[in-house]
């Protein structure tokens, strides 16, 4: 059984890397920047080993909950922190540390020569540490702290190139949009604490995660009436608001595509293992609370499924390879949320697991392509498959996994979700199934459109052509150059390792029949903690799997016809769908609605403008306009202060003395 210290070390190692990088390497050893990379790679390497050990220990001994420590005590309430290591945490630890490790190695190649190299690895250490701290938190306040620090990490990394206005704006947007969700999460915490008495009656602590999980069935059974009825639903909705912000679920999805402004390895980390996975993790962590509320479950399911479809539709028309992948991530997160909403706990986390590998791979591949072409705009790529065979092959693996082609990892996890929705049969589940099934088709199309535009046909000039044609202002330039060649091994090797995960990470951990001593449905059975009622695994519905595979292959064929064979859609049809296409390309105008209409025009312009006017013209001018202030009294004081300060002090003191004397004499 793993010791408490060893689990803490998984968190403290990257914290140590942060301290070393920020306070030692950055300040004193700036001429040897690669020390920063070695520090974090060493720390994360050790963390991977410890995480695997933790996983082994949880497999053997079940959930570990260690004693909590007191952070502060006020009025008899202790805010504590501790470790809660269940199967979910153990899986997340392995995913987070291993994907992060791969990303760091890759970054060494990608960020080489960047003046902010050391700062980059310091931020990466912080980001990884916060995510690790988040998944092992035993207390909801502790979780919230780590949650916000994950947000900080993404803010710093998205805005890493501070001199680029777009990066600074995207970083701010990411932090603000997620903070709106965090506001809901905070209210949920406050509401739990509001009902502290009800928890204490049952001998529970309203801030301990294990106790909140334990309370959910008591609330359903009526033993904790204070939180019954709508109360629990509000807690779940608040938590989901936080999760929707971090996991970029509709309508808080707008920040993730813009987050592309960070260095590409950051995107890989954000999209695969940290940040967006945190939202799915959060819902899973408080799953007993959600299970106790039908309304909350339905909301999660429908929002997730709608997001899956909605985001996939935007992936169809994007021109920037990272944006295609970004919408793909939002869509896949929608799958996970929808799965949670219909009770498919195991399937959701299984999909999170497989997605982490193939999406990290795809992003690193996009970075590799960018390394060669200097651009992310697919219109200026093409023909790279001969120049970058490794990148091409690995991205193809990632793409097939994303589309869900047998027998790659994505196939198993996605079909498990679809199977669950199909089998359910309620109205919500039917709707979820339909939306997710249509998304399968869209996913197949946008993924292969991306692959073909990037790797097939003729090379179209890279960043040089882009800057010439688009007239990109110098300050927004990525500063890339065209040098067509395969990326160095330090970038390819991590992709290859992730590629192994994208191939084997599905069947191997969650086999349909006993394999190499791995039990049937091991992952889905293991990851569902005992406190969760739903969510055990279903046998593969092979009929359904066959149908979705045919659909996916059909849409790959369509993409092939359009982007390889160059077949044009009938002009009449093209004209008819033109307005739709334009709306989708404009991202359904959500950025305009939020940024221009709601925030700039409404909140800042109307409300802010009015209050500022009110403040200056009404509140303040009452003072000025009274006249006595600016003229008479001012004049009087002006006389007084013209000479010496002492007059003033003397004036006050003598005033008091006069009153005192008056009282003494006449009182």
């Amino acid at each position, binding site marked *: 059984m793993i010791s408490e210290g060893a689990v803490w070390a998984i968190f403290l190692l990257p914290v140590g890397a942060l301290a070393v990088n920020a306070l030692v390497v950055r300040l004193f050893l700036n001429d040897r920047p690669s020390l920063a990379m070695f520090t974090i790679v060493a720390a994360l390497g050790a963390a991977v080993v410890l995480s695997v050990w933790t996983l082994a220990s949880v497999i053997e001994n079940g959930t570990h909950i260690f004693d909590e420590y007191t952070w502060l005590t*006020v*009025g008899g*309430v202790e805010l504590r922190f501790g470790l809660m290591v269940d199967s979910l945490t153990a899986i997340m630890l392995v995913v987070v540390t291993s994907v992060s490790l791969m990303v760091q190695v890759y970054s060494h190649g990608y960020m080489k020569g960047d003046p902010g190299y050391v700062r980059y690895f310091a931020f990466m250490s912080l980001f990884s540490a916060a995510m690790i701290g988040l998944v092992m938190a035993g207390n909801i306040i502790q979780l919230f702290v780590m949650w916000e620090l994950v947000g900080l990490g993404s803010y710093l990394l998205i805005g890493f190139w501070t001199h680029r206005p777009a990066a600074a704006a995207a970083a701010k947007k990411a932090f603000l949009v997620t903070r709106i969700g965090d*506001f809901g999460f905070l209210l949920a915490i406050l509401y739990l604490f509001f009902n502290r008495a009800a928890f204490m009656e049952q001998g529970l602590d309203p801030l301990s995660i294990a106790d909140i999980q334990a309370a959910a069935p008591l609330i359903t059974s009526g033993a904790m009436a204070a939180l019954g009825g709508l109360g629990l639903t509000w807690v779940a909705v608040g938590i989901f608001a936080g999760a929707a912000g971090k996991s970029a679920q509709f309508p808080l999805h707008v920040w993730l595509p813009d987050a592309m402004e960070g260095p590409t390895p950051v995107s890989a980390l954000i999209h695969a293992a940290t940040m967006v996975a945190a939202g799915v993790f959060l819902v899973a962590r408080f799953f007993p609370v959600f299970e106790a509320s039908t309304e909350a479950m339905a909301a999660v399911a429908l929002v997730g499924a709608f997001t899956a479809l909605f985001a996939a539709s935007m992936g169809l028309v994007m021109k920037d390879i990272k944006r295609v992948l970004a919408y793909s991530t939002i869509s896949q997160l929608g799958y996970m949320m929808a799965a949670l909403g219909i009770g498919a706990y195991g399937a959701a986390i299984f999909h999170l697991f497989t997605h982490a590998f193939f999406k990290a791979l795809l992003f690193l591949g996009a970075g590799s392509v960018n390394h060669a072409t200097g651009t992310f705009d697919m219109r200026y790529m093409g023909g790279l498959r001969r120049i970058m065979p490794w990148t091409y092959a690995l991205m193809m693996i990632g793409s097939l996994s994303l589309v869900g082609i047998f027998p790659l990892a994505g196939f198993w996890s996605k079909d498990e979700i679809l199977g669950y929705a199909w089998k359910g049969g309620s109205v919500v589940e039917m709707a979820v199934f339909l939306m997710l099934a249509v998304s399968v088709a869209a996913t197949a199309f946008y993924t292969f459109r991306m692959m073909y535009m990037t790797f097939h046909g003729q090379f179209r000039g890279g960043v040089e052509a882009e800057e010439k044609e688009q007239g990109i202002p110098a300050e927004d330039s990525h500063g890339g150059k065209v040098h067509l060649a395969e990326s160095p091994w330090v970038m390819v090797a991590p992709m290859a390792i992730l590629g192994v995960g994208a191939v084997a990470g599905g069947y191997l951990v969650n086999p349909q029949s006993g394999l190499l001593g791995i039990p049937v449905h091991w992952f889905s059975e293991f990851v569902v903690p005992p406190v969760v009622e739903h969510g055990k695994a279903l046998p593969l519905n092979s009929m359904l799997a066959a149908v979705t595979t045919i659909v996916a292959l059909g849409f790959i064929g369509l993409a092939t016809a359009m982007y390889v064979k160059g077949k044009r859609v009938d002009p009449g049809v093209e004209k008819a769908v033109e307005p739709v296409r334009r709306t989708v390309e404009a991202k359904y105008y959500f950025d305009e609605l939020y940024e221009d209409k709601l925030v700039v025009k409404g909140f800042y312009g109307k409300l802010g403008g009015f209050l500022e006017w009110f403040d200056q013209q009404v509140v303040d001018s009452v003072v000025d306009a009274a006249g006595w202030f600016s003229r008479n009294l001012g004049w009087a004081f002006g006389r007084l202060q013209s000479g010496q300060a002492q007059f003033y002090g003397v004036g006050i003191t003598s005033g008091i003395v006069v009153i005192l004397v008056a009282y003494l004499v006449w009182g």
Partner: protein
Amino acid sequence: MSTFDGMLTAVVFLPLVGAILLLALARTDRRVRLTALAVVVADFVLAALVFIRYDADGGSRFQLLDRFEWISTEVFTAQYQLGVDGISAPLVLLTGLLGLCAVLASWSIKMRVKEYFVWLLVLQTAVMGVFVSLDFLLFFLFWELELIPMYFLISIWGSGRKEYSAMKFLVFTFLGSAFMLVSILALFLADGGAQLDMIGWAESGADLARTVIPISVVFWFFFVAFAVKLPLLPVHTWLPDAHTDAPTAVSMMLAGVLLKMGGYGLLRITVGMFPDMTVDHALILTVLAVVTILYAAVVTLRQTDLKRLIAYSSVSHMGLVVLGIGAVGVMGGTYNKLGLTGAAMQLFTHGTITGLLFLCVGVLYERTHTRYIPDLGGLAQRMPFLAVAFVIGGLASLGLPGLSGFVSEILVFLGAFKAFPWLTALGAFGIVIAAGYILWMLQRALFGPARERFAHVGPSNLMERIPMALLVISIVVVGVFPSLLTDVFDAGLGPITAVLGG
């Protein structure tokens, strides 16, 4: 029964003695600066000792007492009475820290140097005096004493409409003080003898029936004085003007410790001495708090002058103090304690955070000669140290966990939500707006492409980095180890919440 420990008298009057020494002895500007620095360093050490010597776990409620009879007549005695409890001990430390940072931040003052530092030191004596006085007459004298140096510091060394702003500050505060004076006089004129001993009030409660004017008037008049100082809506408009036109170090002192006098007054006098009335009016306080938080936050968004922006954000953040105090509106000692401790923590944490932010603006202004945000930008590359400090200050201000501001906020919210859930939820939305104005400010001031007109801008120097580093360290330490302060505040607020009956 007189008793004299001496340490508090030293911590209060050392700056004043230093000021007199400056006047008498220091000849060159250099020597003036060094002497002032020596004085504030010594005072900071003393303040730290006061904080360390205050024993939260045991001993009496008020400690390190300095007491003797000061004015004695047959009808009343005024005591010279200094002491600290868990509420004031951290504020003494805060004042020592900010005083030190303020002198360092004033290193580049060129005009009438001696006079400037004299006033700065007198200011420190006045603020220290407010926090440790335990007699109403003495309290009031220190309260008023603070106005004089502030007035001169703003009107002589300020910028922009400095005379107007200085006068506005003076008149507002003076009007507030007038209300307080009436209340104090009412206590003084109470039937059967004056009740000026704050320890007596705190420990045995006062005989409220004996005041010559209705006790609710006494309560509200005190409240007005503190609300002006804090400030709360609608008596806040002096603050943006005063801050904008004050020199950097004075803004730091103003936001860092002077506003805290208002919050301290609310805790010590409003809640501490009129607990029942505070409970009765908790709803009004909470409404005022929430309006202040949201209104000021929205107005902050609109500001284009860095100092004005931070000044308005201060108004919003001081609303949190009152929100925390509003937590007394629920029966339940735990929640009361959380809210009040959060309010007290907010005094300390906002002091260091806003002190740091004003310092950063000052350092930036020193080089760019503009505070107009649209003219700024791209400075992170030219001033990396400043950028790091500014970003940390900003993140602390928006309540990022791991930094000190979060601790105060979460305590305030945990406490106040029980008393007024809907209002607190509204107020908590202030943290979203805060993220908006802080990040937008950082984006416009620091980030973006380097600008040619700032090509001459060089990095910050050592005298600027020391106070920035001190404040950053205090923000991080309190953020990670909040119990260093919360234990002390918790002890200090214990007797008060006990009276609330929870």
